[in-house]
């Protein structure tokens, strides 16, 4: 394994002018990325998530050579993105969910052909990659339609194809599923999953769609206010934030005596004690069920996986409190709230079990 992306103490500051009076303006420095350390190995599929304004896009733009870092260092494919931008561009692919990299007035087919010349891709390689994308992303029916007439879902499939035609080693996807309908989203997701599974392309994905994360990312880097607040698997995220699986059982009769099992806590009773909810911490659901079956008659049972929405929302709140405190040098009160406008845009929460 070798590192494809290495960032250390990466920073980006912007100077903004704020109106403070009728004519007066003051300059203020806003830190968008505040010392990020990150190493991504070849073939990883990394989810890079955080609330709006956390610095996700800014990080990606520093990695792709669009923005010049204010401090720290970053290397992608062993190259310094800004000074070696043009060399790097041949080795990475970029998709911006909110911005088209295609020719607005030309059909996709012609855009792809232009890209072949721009990246100087051998005709055979180009044709082979395009064929694969055409099949997997079902491009054929709109290949000859000008980009301006495509639906968002069609365009996004075109954008992803465009980013892959030169065979990049790293693919940066900035909110590729934003605004897509369910079917397009599923198509895009399936394609990314396949790409990740093949292991020859490193994928960095930013998203607000938590289903993308659960489906695609083995590793999650969560940033908030320009800092990494979590780096690890989805499971370790759950562990760290105490989100636990729950078991809900329906009994014929209320229990005679409470269940006493280490790691099991009774968190709710309903229906006069005939419906019980337990939370599990380090115990398998099997152990609890076996114990219950021994002392009572089980009628129904369900296991509820933790919803990532809640975990991530909790993480952001905790994260912003941490950083606020560390910056100010004093402990912020327990009521420290994230700044307005930094809310987490979760998709409509899915109640009950989430598909694992």
């Amino acid at each position, binding site marked *: 394994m070798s590192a494809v992306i290495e960032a250390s103490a990466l920073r980006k500051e912007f100077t903004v002018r704020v109106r403070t009076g009728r004519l007066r303006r003051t300059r203020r420095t806003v830190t968008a990325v505040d010392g990020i350390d990150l190493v991504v190995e070849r073939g990883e599929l990394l989810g890079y998530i955080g609330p709006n304004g956390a610095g996700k896009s800014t990080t990606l733009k520093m990695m792709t050579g669009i923005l010049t870092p204010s401090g720290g260092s970053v290397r992608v494919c062993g190259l310094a993105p800004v000074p070696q931008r043009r060399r790097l561009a041949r080795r990475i692919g970029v998709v*911006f969910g909110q911005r088209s*990299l295609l020719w607005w007035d030309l059909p996709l087919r012609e855009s792809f052909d232009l890209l072949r010349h*721009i990246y100087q891709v051998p005709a055979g390689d180009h044709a082979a990659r395009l064929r694969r994308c055409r099949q997997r992303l079902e491009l054929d029916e709109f290949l000859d339609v000008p980009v301006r007439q495509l639906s968002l879902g069609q365009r996004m499939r075109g954008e992803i194809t465009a980013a892959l035609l030169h065979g990049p080693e790293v693919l940066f996807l900035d909110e590729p599923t934003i605004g897509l309908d369910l079917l397009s989203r599923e198509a895009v997701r399936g394609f990314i999953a396949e790409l990740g599974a093949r292991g020859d392309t490193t994928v960095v994905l930013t998203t607000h769609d938590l289903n993308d994360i659960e489906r695609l990312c083995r590793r999650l880097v969560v940033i908030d206010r320009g800092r990494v607040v979590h780096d690890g698997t989805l499971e370790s995220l759950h562990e760290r934030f105490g989100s636990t699986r729950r078991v809900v059982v329906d009994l014929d009769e209320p229990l005679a005596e409470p269940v006493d099992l280490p790691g099991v806590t009774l968190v709710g009773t309903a229906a006069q004690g005939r419906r019980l909810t337990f939370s599990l911490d380090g115990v398998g659901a099997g152990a609890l069920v076996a114990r219950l079956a021994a002392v009572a008659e089980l009628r129904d049972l369900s296991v509820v996986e933790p919803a990532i929405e809640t975990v991530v929302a909790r993480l952001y709140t905790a994260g912003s409190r941490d950083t606020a405190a560390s910056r100010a040098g004093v402990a912020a009160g327990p009521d420290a709230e994230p700044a307005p406008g930094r809310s987490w845009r979760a998709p409509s929460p899915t109640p009950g079990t989430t598909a694992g």
Partner: protein
Amino acid sequence: MAAAYLALLRGQVRSQTSYRASFTVDLVSNLLVTVGDVIAILVLFRVTTELAGFSRSEALVVVGLSACAFACADLAVGNIDQLRRYVRTGLLDALLVRPLGALPQLLAMDLPLRKVSRAGFGVTVLVVFLALADIDWTPSKVALAVAAPVGGAAFFAAVFIAGATVAFWWIESGELANSVTYGGREIAYYPMTVYEGAFRRLFGFGLGFAFVAYYPALALLGREDPLGLPGWVGWVAPAVALPAAGVAAVAWRVGIRHYRSTGS
């Protein structure tokens, strides 16, 4: 590498001509604008036959040189004023992720084909006015008659680019850059003797607009400079494009490092 830029140009040509009617209208209206400019000057000469010590045919050589230089520069890089829009909307991102220089891409993608008519008219005007003037043609004067509009075009191009880079620092710069480029063109249209003192020193010599058309015209016409510069100045005047291009290149390089993109 050239093939890559050619591909971009091809895409641009295909995009623009995909709106056929509007393209034709643009072509014609652009021609009318330039014709109007020249007519305005001819009207001036209906009132007077002499302009600050220059006869009509002499002054028209200055007009021809600057009109041709400006129209060619406008065709090649005129749409760089769109940089403002690219910076404001973050569209520049799209150019920066491609393995090509951002500036050539910007020029190739925005090449205003509709301005072809203007450039063609500029060249025509130059040829006609040179033919009308009383010039004692020698091979070196022919060479200067070619070098002067080329150098002048490069000079205007540098002014266009340097002016546009203001957008990297100041997005709300509005038409500031255009006031320098179009203002500079107006200055270059007339013999420098028309202008007075500080204004002439600043725009003519300081910013270099006197060297676009006025000095090459003096050399072509074999006239002495009423302002007192030696005769060889007219022969090297087209080289004014070099320092201008240097300044523009530095401004661009520094500017692009200041590019801030947009949120998300």
